[in-house]
């Protein structure tokens, strides 16, 4: 009698609560005595607060991240060097007031709007805003961008060496596990692939102001940049005209995903401190927690049109008419918002603290029970090979028997995002906005859950 109602599956030692992590399912165990020797000092004078030889730095990483870490060289630079190599297009953040204003408006639209046939104007405006290239970033406005954000940088190609060298100081710090500036110059000259830069001065300043261990901040920044490396695709879209990072929705998803990867490496109080660090960052970084709550949901085009046609049979004629196209797209957006956002994103099942571990098939079933019939077939239709390659090489998803529900959802989202980037990040396809619309609504959801208390 004493045990009735106690959920036995969730029983266990409460002293050491710990999530399952990727390395649990991996055959590759970390070797703390032999960490990857990929860290070079290019211009940091004081390295005494940092310790790169800590085993925990490498033990925390999941297998996929450790693989990336062993292949990408890390260069420690000072703040002048960082400012010199930081691309001007990335020295911007989202202007939060504009977007948050629309978010709040859309989120508090009263219910009656659904029943009217006029789509909510604010919703459409918000979607256009999230789709606008280069707009709503703070580049032109002074004072909105703080250099303290630029603690780390991932670049798919190494920058010009001269810009770094002319700002390097005379006496540079050394530490265990850190290679010398001479070696760094050699490597940077010959290296072709991606590189990571970390600014130790800013990391130390941040840690001081937050009264945290500088090594914890360092680890978080490093994992975040490794996350960007993991999220990059073979043919990088970096600084091309298709780069989704220049579009607000793309930036929200990219930064939230990278932050989720960084956050995922930590547990317990450390995870809380990392969350506190993330709290200092701009709004586009705040969606990391929501990133593991709900999967991106793709709508079947036919289904949308079918539904709309039921309501308005004349729509078929208007679809043929180019001028009224934007109108029908509006109604699609509205439909998408009301049906999907409210009944799927609002019911975030994974986060309601489901203790047990479930597998991806069950997860799919869970969503299917709530009306999302096809979350897994949409994107594979266009170019299956890219998708499956992504699965195999990036996360080796199939090899793991079970993952926790939150992990599974986040992995799915990362996969969708990667596959989208592998397709060249199309934002319109023959006049159809449906493809990025799924990501738009997802980005809206990340904003809403991340930025509002």
């Amino acid at each position, binding site marked *: 009698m004493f045990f009735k109602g106690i959920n036995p*599956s*969730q029983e266990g030692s409460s002293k050491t609560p710990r999530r399952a992590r990727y390395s649990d399912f991996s055959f590759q165990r970390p070797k703390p005595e032999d960490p990857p020797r990929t860290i070079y000092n290019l211009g940091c004078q004081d390295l005494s607060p940092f310790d790169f030889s800590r085993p925990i730095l490498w033990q925390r990483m999941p297998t996929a991240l450790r693989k990336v870490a062993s292949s990408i060289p890390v260069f420690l630079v000072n703040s002048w060097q960082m400012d010199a190599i930081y691309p001007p297009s990335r020295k911007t953040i989202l202007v939060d007031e504009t977007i948050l204003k629309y978010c709040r408006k859309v989120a508090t639209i*009263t*219910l009656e709007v659904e029943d009217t046939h006029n789509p909510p104007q604010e919703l459409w405006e918000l979607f256009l805003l999230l789709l606008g290239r280069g707009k709503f970033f703070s580049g032109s406005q002074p004072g909105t961008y703080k250099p303290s954000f630029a603690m780390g940088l991932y670049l798919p190609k190494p920058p010009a060496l001269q810009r770094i060298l002319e700002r390097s100081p005379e006496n540079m710090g050394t530490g265990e596990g850190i290679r010398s500036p001479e070696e760094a110059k050699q490597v940077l000259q010959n290296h072709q692939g991606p590189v990571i830069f970390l600014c130790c001065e800013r990391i130390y300043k941040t840690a001081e102001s937050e009264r945290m261990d500088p090594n914890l901040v360092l680890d978080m920044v490093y994992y975040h940049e490794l996350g960007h490396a993991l999220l990059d695709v073979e043919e990088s879209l970096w600084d091309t005209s298709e780069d989704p990072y220049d579009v607000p929705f793309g930036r929200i998803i990219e930064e939230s995903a990278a932050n989720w990867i960084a956050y995922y490496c930590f547990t317990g109080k450390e995870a809380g401190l990392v*969350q506190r660090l993330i709290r200092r960052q701009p709004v586009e970084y705040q969606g990391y927690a929501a990133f593991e709550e709900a999967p991106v949901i793709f709508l079947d085009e036919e289904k949308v049109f079918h539904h709309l046609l039921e309501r308005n049979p004349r729509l078929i004629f208007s679809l043929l008419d180019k001028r009224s196209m934007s109108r029908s797209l509006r109604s699609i957006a509205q439909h998408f918002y009301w049906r999907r956002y409210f009944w799927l994103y609002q019911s975030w*099942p994974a986060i*309601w603290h489901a203790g047990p571990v479930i597998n991806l098939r069950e997860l799919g079933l869970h969503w299917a029970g709530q009306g999302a019939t096809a979350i897994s077939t949409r994107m594979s239709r266009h170019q299956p090979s890219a998708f499956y390659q992504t699965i195999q090489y990036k996360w080796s998803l199939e090899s793991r028997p079970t993952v926790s529900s939150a992990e599974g959802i986040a992995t799915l989202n990362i996969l969708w995002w990667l596959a989208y980037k592998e397709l060249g990040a199309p934002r319109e396809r023959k006049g159809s906005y449906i493809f990025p619309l799924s990501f738009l609504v997802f980005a809206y959801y990340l904003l809403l859950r991340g930025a509002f208390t």
Partner: protein
Amino acid sequence: MDSKSYEALPATIYNLGSCAARYLDFTREELWARMSTPLRHKAVQIPVFLVNEAQMDILYPPERRKVIDPENAKDWRERRRNSDDPPKWQDLDPPSPDEKDPDPSSPKGKGPSPSWSRYERFVAIGLYVCNPKAPPEVIEEAKCKDGPSPTGVLGFSEAEEAYIRHEGPRIYLCCERIVSVAEEKGIDPNLVLDKVYYHELGHALLKGVRCFEKPEDDPYLQTWGRIIEESAAEWISYVHFRGRERLLFRKVLMKDKPAEYRSCVVFHRIPLFPLPMAEPNNWDENTQQGIRSGLRKFYESWMDQKFPWGTPGPGKSFYEVWMTQKYPWGMPGTGILPLVEGTLLEDWLKGELFYKCEQQEDLMVQQKRWIGFLSLPLWDAWVAQRAFFLFFGYPSWGAMKVTTNPKTLIRNRALFTSFMASLNLSAWRAYKELGAPREPEYVIPLEEFAAALINFSSQTYVF
């Protein structure tokens, strides 16, 4: 490397004048490790103010000083089950005796409930506020004006400034009450602190973007709204504990709680219907009554359902058996079932039904029950689909093997319960996010759900 200690905490915690704060430790690993990601996300966002009893009494809104006496809830439940004229919300949650002429349509008066004084120290122990007003007399009531503590709690001067300046939601925790409750129960005050803190963070999780500016819009001030909100927040708090701590939570800490808090233990056992149940403003008075009684019957039969294979004892409901039976290996479960390893559940159920039902006297009754349950007019296609996945499709379509493996059984049961709870929580949150509309198509299912929560948690075998 220097062995310097870094005292930063994930959350911002201020001591606004509580002397008992020194007995509480926010640097413990398990306080933060127990939390799930979204809960910790909220913890990082929302500042916490530690206050003393006098300060909490000023801060606690008078319209929220309402509790439901569990004894009262028992009577209410009996009357509701047995009489044709069911008792009203007002009988469950009476206004204070000194209040003159309370409005029957809105049972919420301004004054506290008659039994408030008995439950005050267990309820006004923590407070989550969405739109804070900061009355200045709270600062005058500060007893200990300590500086910042070495454990990361910020001192009085910072607290004073943040108390006046901070916009947005905040959490108040009354350390004196936390410590006195822990002393009375003989358990670690830090456990009580964690429980209260998670409960308030649960309220934060249940809130969306919308904050109710006008008090009349807030469903919390309705009795049914308070029951659902409090049991949901308490459930969130409850599931964050495991093992011995969960047992302490349930057996010790929940003893002196009002009925709406105690009902968290059945929150994941009862389904809330999707809202709205029909197009708003389409139900006339007769339909409303019909829906009400239909829902009431539904919830009763939901908890009273007999096992298809017959109950182990006479007159025991599905729920009762669920709660009291044990597997042979001592875990709670459905008792000894004649299972053959590897049978498909569907086939086994069919065979079981036909074989056992022949032996049952009340075969017809049972069949009728199931038919009535399925043919309820309220069950539109969407609900039927959900139910399908709940009963048959989850966790996998018909391919779930019948198994005697305790691990699998326990896992399936845990999946089932968390699934139901997630539906309830999300429905309630979405309802508030829509602005808490008061059409009967929304309110009636919510009222019946709240009544069911009170009903089933006031049964003796729940605790």
